[in-house]
């Protein structure tokens, strides 16, 4: 398990974080630029020494400012995937991956590097140099290189940000699979909450150097503790399977029951996402008003005031969050336990391949 605590000054921001990540768990650290996300990674890796802090992985203490312990990065065994991948331009792909394998005999190094590249489907590009690889290929080489280290902690800095939209989907899928398989703790940094929700087991939202809320993605979306978190968490994300429908719309069968329609095209496993403020809540029993096509029955779990808006955490086949005015809450007598129907338009439903 990773336990990290750090307090230091970054420019005008004061960084003050404390977090724990279980082995095999991936914590997504999400927040806007300048919030200090990358600095947390650098502290964990030993590239940034905080004014005060402690970093320990299992029984190994890597940093303890009180006791004067500061293990240098080269001795920590942190697999760090940098934002621009930081592949060594003068080395081929397999040599990049073999770089951390200094202790092994020569023949074995190449074999292990090829094995890793093969796992990511890059065996054919083993001799290519980074300049000739595509963005997605570079990302996979960087990941393979980090894993070659057999690290005790995995750090990922915006691993999908440099990829174009098309590559991002498949890359997210692969990354999620890798994270599921690795038995060590992982921290993933992103400015995109959807990405955090997709790849992280838990999400910690960081703003101006402080973690403002931690929890599962749906918890954060349902019960944001601040307007910042509310705005940041954005969409509700539902898992389901899509198939083209008769009238040009795509039908998505949701896991746990229920069906929604979307104007996006899609087939197979997908994420269906919709923004909380596009969801209308009406008391159960009444037929849905308007031309909204999607409706899901749910029970109100939480009612959270965020400024002059109210976030409703709804328990349906999957967790939902809706955002309504305070007036609506009053008018419809929305309290925990109330049974409601959540509706939204097919045009407001976005599909992202799963």
């Amino acid at each position, binding site marked *: 398990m990773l336990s990290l605590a750090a307090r230091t000054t970054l420019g005008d921001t004061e960084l003050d974080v404390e977090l724990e990540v279980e082995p095999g768990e991936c914590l997504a650290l999400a927040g806007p630029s300048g919030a200090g996300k990358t600095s947390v990674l650098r502290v964990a890796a030993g590239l940034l020494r905080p004014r005060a802090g402690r970093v320990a992985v299992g029984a190994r203490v890597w940093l303890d400012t009180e006791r004067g312990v500061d293990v*240098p*990065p080269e001795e920590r065994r942190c697999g760090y995937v940098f*934002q621009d991948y*930081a*592949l060594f331009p*003068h080395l081929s792909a397999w040599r990049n991956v073999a770089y*951390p394998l200094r202790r092994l005999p020569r023949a074995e190094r190449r074999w292990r590097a090829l094995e890793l590249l093969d796992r990511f489907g890059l065996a054919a590009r083993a001799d290519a140099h980074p300049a000739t690889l595509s963005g997605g290929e570079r990302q996979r080489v960087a990941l393979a290189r980090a894993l070659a280290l057999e690290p005790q902690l995995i750090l990922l800095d915006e691993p999908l940000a440099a990829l174009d939209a098309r590559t991002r989907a498949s890359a997210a899928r692969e990354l999620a699979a890798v994270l599921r398989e690795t038995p060590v703790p992982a921290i993933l940094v992103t400015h995109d909450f959807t990405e955090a929700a997709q790849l992280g087991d838990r999400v910690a939202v960081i703003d101006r150097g402080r973690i403002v809320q931690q929890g599962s993605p749906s918890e954060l979306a349902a019960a944001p503790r601040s307007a910042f978190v509310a705005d940041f968490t954005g969409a509700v994300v539902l898992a389901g399977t899509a198939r083209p429908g008769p009238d040009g719309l795509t039908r998505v069968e949701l896991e746990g029951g229920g069906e929604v329609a979307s104007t996006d095209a899609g087939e197979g496993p997908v994420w269906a996402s919709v923004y909380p403020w596009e969801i209308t809540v009406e008391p159960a029993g009444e037929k849905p008003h308007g031309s909204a096509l999607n409706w899901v029955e749910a029970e109100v779990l939480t009612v959270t005031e965020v400024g002059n808006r109210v976030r409703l955490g709804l328990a349906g086949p999957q967790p939902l969050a809706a955002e309504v005015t305070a007036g609506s809450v009053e008018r419809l007598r929305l309290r925990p336990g109330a049974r409601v129907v959540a509706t939204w338009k097919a045009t407001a439903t976005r599909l992202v391949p799963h």
Partner: protein
Amino acid sequence: MSSRRAFALALGVCAGLVVLFLALPVVAIFVDSSPGALLESLGEEGALDALWLSLRCTAIAIAIVLVAGTPAAYLIATRSFRGRAAVITAIELPLVLPPAVAGIALLASLGPSGILGGAIESAGIRLSLATAGVVVALVFVSAPFYVRQAIAAFGAVDRTLLDASRTLGVSEARSFARVMIPAAAPGLAAGTALALGRALGEFGATLMFAGSFQGITQTVPLAIYDRFATDFDSALALSAVLVAVSAAILLAVKLLVRGEPLGGWGTR
């Protein structure tokens, strides 16, 4: 003629003039005398001595510049410290010094009457009128060419490469050799080529500081100067050889660097 075409023509004329001006003297060296006469003059003992001395001293001087200059350039490029700008200016200053001034500077500092002259003499080191003096003069005039390029080259290397290397288990010292130097290689090679050219051609400072004696201190440029008034063919032959050697070095350096497909990725 449209103004665009007129502009293109003017550019072409300027470029043509520049190329002609630079190429003509070099071509003239090879054309002004017969190849037979050139080879004959080369066989003469003094000429070969001068060539061998020039190559030896330049090689030693460049080796010193590389070994001492590379880590120094790395430090200056990657760390900020008080007086950094002053240090960079001090390194660049010899670049703009005329060779005669460089000679005076060396005499005033390391010459027998210079500031450190006494200390050098007591240490038993002979610089004046000795081969070591030639090497010292060459290092002084050529080092700035290399160090300046090396600072720029290291400065342009993406710093996260160093971070990546460290997280992958390689200490900073070893990362310097395994990652930073290869990543900066094109700039380092360019700096080496410039320094080589400058060292091979050095004349004024060497003459003033180390003198001119066959086999000991008379490098090729000095040998050329010694001969041109009385034996122009010999001077031509030596000049042709120097041009050929310099061109070969330049080509070798370019090829060495071309062989590494470095592109721009990861070194933004």
